[in-house]
């Protein structure tokens, strides 16, 4: 049924958008591709799993996992990226390599600390499925869609209605001039990491709940799919990222729903990316239409 598939597509797309948002926020300010954002997704999933295991409270799991992961992001920026980027005439490949290293490290740390096997992520919602007319909805889907909508609303409010958000947008557009008018651009960077890594952590928990399991390799597919989403979204545009994430989620869902599986599902993001870049190289949403 079409409606069922649309709902499914929105749900998958929400997770994609949430995963990629951090990379977008970070690219927007620092102009680096932060693959380690997919590491935040893994770390967040594990923190959330642990907190839920100990407390049985999903709200606490989301809240603390997002906070811890966001703070780790700030520290990573402070002690790894900031020193690298402060070197004169640094090649963009250098922070990229650092971020790949960080990403690999996250997976390996998860393997070392929590063990290489799969961890069950059994969250009890009380009911298994909800039937609305012909629509079958799993409670986790509602959680994912509602929570993502909530987080993106918060992001929109922060970026558009607060002084820090104004500083973020100014810095994203012209970091030098932002500094020259008195903005401590480090605070805009910290905002990118807190929100970005926090969102990735939430996405990690959502995926754990959705598939009832997490493994240290959880971040591998998102690490590259995320890239295609942020490029599609016009590199650095939060709104573009939401649209691109939903778009990829929807296309993937439709293809597998209608048995067009001659294309492997995970390759869809890249086929779409190549097509869009051939037709509109600035991405689906160009930077000038930013937010």
């Amino acid at each position, binding site marked *: 049924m079409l409606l069922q598939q649309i709902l499914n597509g929105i749900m998958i797309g929400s997770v994609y958008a949430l995963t990629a948002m951090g990379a977008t926020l970070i690219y927007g300010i620092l102009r680096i591709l932060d693959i380690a954002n997919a590491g935040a997704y893994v770390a967040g999933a594990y923190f959330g799993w642990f907190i839920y295991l100990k407390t049985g409270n999903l709200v606490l799991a989301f809240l603390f996992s997002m906070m811890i992961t966001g703070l780790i992001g700030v520290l990573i920026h402070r002690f790894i990226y900031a020193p690298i980027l402060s070197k*004169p*005439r640094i090649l963009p490949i250098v922070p990229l390599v650092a971020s790949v290293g960080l990403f690999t490290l996250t997976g390996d740390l998860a393997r070392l600390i929590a063990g290489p096997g799969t961890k069950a992520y059994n969250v009890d919602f009380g009911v298994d499925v909800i039937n609305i007319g012909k629509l079958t909805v799993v409670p986790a889907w509602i959680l994912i869609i509602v929570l993502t909508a909530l987080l993106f609303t918060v992001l929109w409010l922060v970026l558009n209605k607060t*002084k820090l958000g*104004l*500083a973020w*947008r*100014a810095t994203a*557009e*012209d970091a*030098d*001039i*932002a*500094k*020259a*008018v*008195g*903005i*401590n*651009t480090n605070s805009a960077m910290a905002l990118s990491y807190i929100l970005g890594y926090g969102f990735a952590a939430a996405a990690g928990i959502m995926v754990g709940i959705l598939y009832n399991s997490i493994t240290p390799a959880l971040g591998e597919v998102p690490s590259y799919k995320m890239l295609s989403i942020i490029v599609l979204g016009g590199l650095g545009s939060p709104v573009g990222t939401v649209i691109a994430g939903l778009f990829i989620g929807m296309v993937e869902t439709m293809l597998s729903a209608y048995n067009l599986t001659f294309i492997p599902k995970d390759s869809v993001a890249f086929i779409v990316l190549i097509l869009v870049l051939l037709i509109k190289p600035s991405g689906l949403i160009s930077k*000038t239409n*930013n*937010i």
Partner: protein
Amino acid sequence: MLKIVDLEVAYGQMEVLKKINLEVKKGELVSVIGPNGAGKTTLIKTIMGLKDAKAGQIFIEGKEILGMPAWKRAEMGVGYVPEGRRVFGNLTVEENLRVGCYSLNDTKKIQQNIKKVYELFPRLEERKKQLARTMSGGEQQMLAIGRALVMEPRLLLIDEVSMGLMPIMVNLCFKIIKDLNDQGITVMIVEQNANKALKISHRGYVLETGNIVLEDTVEKLRNNDVVQKAYLGG
């Protein structure tokens, strides 16, 4: 107010400023003129903290500022109107002005200062909800000046304010700069339009390929043969 001692700046191996010495006293309006590529923009960026110096010292009100990040210099009262305006195109006019107030915390003061800019440039108030990138070049220049003024700078650095503007706008901009200086703001302007710049200034420096080759009061500079030939078209 501003004192520069033996300043050396380079891009990689290329020396762009070679032992520059320059001073702008409190209340003065000083222009730095010179041909394309002389290093004028580099000089301003180094004062603002957007370009690192290789050697030398820069003092603002007696305080050595090299190594200080640009936003601290802005907080100290250094305002900057960059070459090519560089307004935040995806922000509205009003948002651009609010960004300019970033280092102020008093909401009432912020509103007052924005209002003052609107009084100076009524056009900006008419267009306050408009995205800056959709404004004309002249309007963007007003906005770039306004954005620097809202934080009540004591020293204003202005790079090539006349570039790409029609003559009536050029005159307006220079008149406003003169008025601001009369109201007590110390100003340093960097210009290719030497004629107009010298008209409103007290003193001038001539910068050529990274060296200050002349320094004098504007009366003397305007009567200097070399300056007349090279910069004043006479």
